[in-house]
């Protein structure tokens, strides 16, 4: 797959974020953020809750635009690209939503067939073959006739994955793919992510908190906090880089650079006590 991507062959990164700055509701979500996602690899993006990991994915897919900086995906800057070009690009990007986002009006088969029906005029036989192949890949060919409401969380996520890969994308973005899954379903999804990356060479970006799971699949980890990359490296070495961020995050400490207390005024003053003399 990677060889078909030729817009900027010299660039080893499929996605390159340069100096991205975004202000949302007066709060700086990203402050000159730099991220590079290498081709054909699985990259994990981690960080404390509320640091804008999902927001970063939305920037990569052009759902949101930053206030400054560039987001290059396969040689195109999605921050300035036209809507038509963006839609063309998106056809080559799979996106796995946190809550699967299956269309509740359609059954499993139609959900997976949806992108095909919207973008192609393939004959019904061909659509059927493609859809069943993808469903077989995620192990849910037998569930083709079920409605989304009849699926468990893990099954829904696998159907959504089948839908995301129906066009054989160059890039898949996983938004919290492990949330709310039991250990069996979690491992099934984990196995799928790895298989898709290894057999099809699909570049994968993973936003997740599950450290153990990520260690099994990720080639590279970015740790984002306060709108910046605070640490990066491969899963085995990143935890030991010694910075207070990694120590707190990977060690799971309650207090540290990410404070336990939400910023507030003087505690004693807000309780109405007279100000204590310093």
């Amino acid at each position: 797959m990677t060889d078909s991507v030729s817009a900027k062959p010299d660039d080893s990164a499929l996605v390159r974020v340069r100096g991205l700055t975004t202000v949302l509701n007066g709060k700086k979500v990203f402050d000159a953020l730099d991220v590079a996602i290498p081709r054909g690899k699985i990259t994990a993006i981690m960080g404390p809750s509320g640091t804008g990991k999902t927001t970063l994915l939305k920037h990569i897919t052009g759902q949101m635009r930053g206030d400054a900086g560039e987001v290059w995906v396969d040689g195109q800057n999605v921050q300035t690209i036209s809507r038509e070009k963006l839609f063309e690009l998106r056809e080559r990007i799979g996106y796995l939503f946190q809550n699967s986002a299956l269309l509740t009006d359609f059954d499993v088969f139609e959900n997976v067939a949806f992108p095909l029906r919207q973008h192609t005029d393939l004959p019904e036989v061909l659509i059927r073959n493609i859809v069943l192949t993808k469903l077989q890949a995620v192990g849910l060919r037998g569930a083709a006739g079920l409605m989304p409401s009849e699926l468990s969380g893990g099954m829904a996520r696998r159907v959504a994955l089948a839908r995301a890969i129906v066009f054989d994308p160059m890039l898949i973005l996983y938004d919290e793919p492990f949330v709310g899954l039991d250990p069996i379903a979690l491992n099934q999804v984990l196995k799928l992510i790895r298989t898709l990356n290894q057999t099809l060479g699909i570049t994968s970006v993973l936003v997740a908190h599950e450290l153990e799971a990520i260690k099994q699949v990720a080639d590279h980890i970015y740790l984002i906090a306060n709108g910046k990359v605070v640490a990066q490296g491969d899963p085995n070495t990143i935890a030991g880089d010694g910075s207070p961020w990694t120590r707190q995050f990977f060690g799971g400490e309650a207090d540290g650079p990410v404070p336990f207390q939400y910023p507030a005024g003087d505690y004693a003053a807000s309780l109405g006590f007279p100000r204590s003399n310093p």
Partner: protein
Amino acid sequence: MSQRPSYAVGTGLFIVLGFAALGYLATQTTSVANTSRGPSYTVEAHFANIGQLKERAPVKVAGVRVGQVRSITLEPGKETADVKLAIDQRYGQIPDDSVATIFTSGLLGDQYVGIQYGSSKKVLADGGTLALTRPAQQLEEMLGKFFGAGGAADNLAGSYRVKARFSNIGALSVGAPVKMAGVAIGSVQTVKADPVKLDAEVTLAIDKKYSQIPDDSAAAVFTSGLIGTQYVAIQPGGSPDMLKDGDELVLTQSAMQIEDLIGKFLVSGSSSSSGDKKDADGGKH
């Protein structure tokens, strides 16, 4: 895929049903339902006054709809309205001496053209003209005729005048009918108060046709119905001499005021002067 046919059929049914309803509303419940469907031919009629007649008003024979008014035009320089009637082909046997009249359905209804067949053997051709027409009756004229005001015109043919004196004429006015046996035979010509005798002197113009009225007949001012207009009724007497122009009717009965009538009724019906309804009922028994 599996659901597609079911809702497609349902949607189709819904759309068909909706349009069927529209077609039903538009054709069956509106004036479109009245438009003639068969071929028609055109007949012209000239009316001195079309009143409230409108295009597409019905044309009726014996009360049955046979066509409709196609156009109403007034040619410059002419005083009659040119009305074209579209008549259904199957009612094509209209004698050429038929009379076209503008009627009103009911007192307040829409106007229509009624055709009364004549006796001619010749049938009116397409584009022919109905020579005999009667214009729309204006409500005012009709009321006038009904109440006798129009009678004055008839009297021009010949009438004679008779005087009558009443102590009270109520609301009797000039033009009110003079009736004998309920049939109008003339009208009130003048009403004036006599400054000396302190009563009302009424001059009645009676049609010459009715010259055989005994001179001892009585005249009375009556009211038609409870709230109708007043008229003069002649009650013939038994004298061999007949009334002549300028005579005076000696026996008269003045108008009954409705207040008097009610007063009389109450007094005779009930001993108590308060006269409430229960007492009145009780008095009848």
